[in-house]
């Protein structure tokens, strides 16, 4: 499977993502430079975490206007698979590729720590092989990660199975104390209606290397690879 990882100026999780895809999962990976428009025939585009263009305005607000994003938007419109993690999720929201917005954490601080999330639906590429009851330990690292959508949108998301993950405690219980940033309905990740564009705040690529003693993130990557190689 051929992955393309987009590099914006200020991306800083790009190499971590590439390391997991290439070195740990042995997939083909190309780097997609923000000034280019050629997606090089990739099967799957990843928008990695970081602070694209410094994120001085609003996270992801500038990145979505970069030349490569025009191609990514066209690719997604044709059903191409796109995953945005953290800043990548923020960019997807800004670009309107997934519904909702990401606001400042409710404690107004950057938060980096391990949290638990639970897959909500088996009918997406990203979650299809994840055990539904398992609380996955995946770290977050963001200042603007509080997912928000209006009531109508939430209703649709729930009805269509577009909610990918919710924050939970280590036993899998979804409750307020397990919600690290105040996200509405504990939402940690969503997808678009076509279920080909995925956005999530937690960093699965930070939980995919046995040397770091946590490989829960591999569930997501293996889910992606399973479908395409099937």
């Amino acid at each position, binding site marked *: 499977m051929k992955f393309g990882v987009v590099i914006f*100026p*200020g991306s*800083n*999780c790009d*190499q*971590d993502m590439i*390391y*997991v895809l290439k*070195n740990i999962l042995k997939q083909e990976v190309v780097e997609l430079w923000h000034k280019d428009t050629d997606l090089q025939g990739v099967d799957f585009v990843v928008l990695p*975490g*970081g*602070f694209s*263009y*410094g*994120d*001085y305005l609003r996270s992801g607000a500038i990145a979505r206007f970069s030349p490569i994003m025009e191609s990514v938007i066209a690719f997604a419109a044709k059903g191409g698979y796109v995953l945005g993690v953290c800043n990548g999720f923020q960019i997807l929201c800004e670009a309107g590729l997934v519904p909702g917005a990401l606001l400042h954490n409710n404690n107004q*601080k*950057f*938060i*980096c*720590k*391990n949290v638990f999330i639970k897959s909500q639906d088996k009918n997406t590429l990203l979650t299809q092989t994840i055990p539904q009851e398992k609380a996955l330990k995946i*770290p977050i*690292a963001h*200042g603007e990660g509080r997912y928000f959508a209006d009531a109508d949108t939430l209703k649709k998301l729930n009805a269509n199975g577009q909610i990918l993950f919710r924050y939970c405690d280590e036993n899998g219980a979804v409750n307020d104390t397990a919600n690290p940033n105040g996200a509405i309905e504990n939402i940690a990740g969503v997808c678009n209606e076509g279920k080909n564009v995925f956005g999530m705040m937690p*960093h699965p*690529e*930070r939980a*995919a*290397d046995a*040397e*770091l*003693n*946590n490989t829960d993130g591999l569930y997501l990557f293996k889910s992606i690879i399973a479908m395409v190689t099937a």
Partner: protein
Amino acid sequence: MQSTANDTLTNLDTAKKLGLLPEEFEKIKQILGRTPNFTELSIFSVMWSEHCSYKNSITWLKTLPKDGSRMLAKAGEENAGLVDIGDGLACAFKIESHNHPSALEPYQGAATGVGGINRDIFTMGARPIAQLNSLRFGDIKLDRTKWLVKGVVKGIGNYGNAFGIPTVGGEVFFDECYNINPLVNAMSAGIVKVGETISATSYGVGNPVYIVGSATGKDGIHGATFASSDITEDSAKDLPAVQVGDPFQEKLLLEATLEVIKSGAVVGMQDMGAAGIICSTSEMSAKGEHGMKIYLDKVPTRQANMLPFEILLSESQERMLVVVTKGREKEIEKIFDKWDLNCELIGEVTDTKRLEYYMQGELVADVPAYDLVLGGGAPIYKREYTEPAYFAESKKFSIDQVQEPADINTVIQHLVSHPNIASKKWVVEQYDSMVGTVNMSTNNPSDAAIVNIKGTNKAIALTVDCNSRYVNADPETGCAIAVSEAARNIVCSGGEPTAITNCLNFGNPYNPEVYWQFVGAIKGMSKACLKFGTPVTGGNVSFYNQTSNGDKTEPVFPTPTIGMLGIVDNKEFFTSLSFKKEGDKIYLIGKSVNDIASSEYLYSFHKVKNSPAPAFNLDYEYAIQQGIRKLIQGKHIQSAHDCADGGLFITLLESAMPNNLGFDIVCDKTIRKDAFLFGEAQSRVVVSVSKEKEEAFINLLKKEAVDFSLLGEVSKGENSIDKQKIADTKELKNKFDTALANCLN
């Protein structure tokens, strides 16, 4: 050279205002053979400031051990120390202070401290992979302290997080001596292939000189001079001396710099930190024994009509000076263009060994490079020192003067919620500790931070340590303890102590009692570094950390922060601090001492401020560490955690908390219970051992003649001391985790 309309000749008054001494002004006139103009005098004033010249410290710094088989660059030779870590790789690492700016503007002060230290690493061609910091603040109840803590932590976080290098470790300490003058020390470590480093040098007549990165503004002018004087009530007027940081530019500069170095077209490179263009042009030229012609009007500026001295002295961040091989200009320009960074040709290398600065075709300053720099013509002073009265006084302390508390639970509650002991979660969760996916301590907490070197069997171990209360009690012993604790942390995590960097935070060097603390600390550091075979690779000195209130001056505790690098040759030896399993035996390696001197317990529970440093013997410490090393390499132990602030009890609790376990222990009845549980005698490590390995464990320690004693057993979460139940781990953890947030919110 004639003075010009824009630039008048100077006199002694001007010199004094710029922080120069009368004899220094005389020396400058001698060097130039004439009276300097204002631009030139400004140049000398920053280059000869304490911050750049180390004039009051260099005599003693030279006595520190610098040699070691792994050293690739000796202290002072390059922007950071460079250590061979094997497998064809080297680690560049350094610690630096940003105390004075942080005292005025905590957010930018701390942020630019992080930026500066990382540039020191990547200007050598090394990619930073881990950052640490060591922070000291005043009484946490003060509004000023809360403002400083919040600003500093946000500044470090926002800069480091966006820059994208994980913050893997650090320390935070509170004491009223830091009320006005906090200490903000930032450390960075980077990895580079041996032989692919770039030097801060300049040579090759006609080679072009570039300034790259951010435009030059009026921020940070005379910052180095500002950092070389006492913080006073008037310091707020110096606000323009504080720089402003832009981590996004720094990230671009990092990527572009490493790419440019790879091109092979770079002769030398230096980042612009203190004293800006003047510092990088003079240090690179002096090192390469060449000169430069620099056209200041070519420098991209943020403001119009900047004066020559402003352009020269500006400490605007995220800039580099790059000397390029003539004929390869296009390659360099293309790379910076790719990263959308300024890359301006501002001058050329000459053979004159002089720095000639032009503005609109006019020579505005002409000075010899060598005479400006440390190791060249910069002044060197020997300061006198005298032992302060408190030193003899504190030695009179005896444990018998302190009554043992009737109920140890009150002490336990006091300590677990004391900001010096309690979890620093409130702080560290604001730092990205996981970006780069190399932090092996995230899911396996350990005494030193263990940072993976991907694709090898190796990891590096990093730690920053200094208990300044010990150093204040006894500078020589206290500083030896700081080095020992750093080494102990690395050994307990499975690493081999390799080299150190230091950040020497002291009061005014012209105060003989402060200088006595400085000399003592250097002696203690030398002794300990020789013992552990950890040479000093460099670092930084920050004097004038004190508060002037009218006539009264109060120095901060002498705080020689030690940043230590260790090598974990085989990742299998990585050892965490957490208990693993109920029923595992808990042992103390080392011996219990009837000592509570300088402990947090004595200082904040009993409020006894004057006592000696805790019990410590360097040879004994070394033997204990060798014992731990053998236990780890023989795979005899499940966990190792050294006894430090808060004593044995806090060590046990910290080992119990990560896996929600507990401990049932018995006390050594030959010493006082409070000394046993809360004393901070050095050279003690708590280990846990599985029942299957216990016999081999005991045999090894007996064979090696290392002191040890059985403390008890790991429980499933309830705790007891001498069969008496105390609060369980869950309850204590809750207090421990929330105490700091409760103080700050």
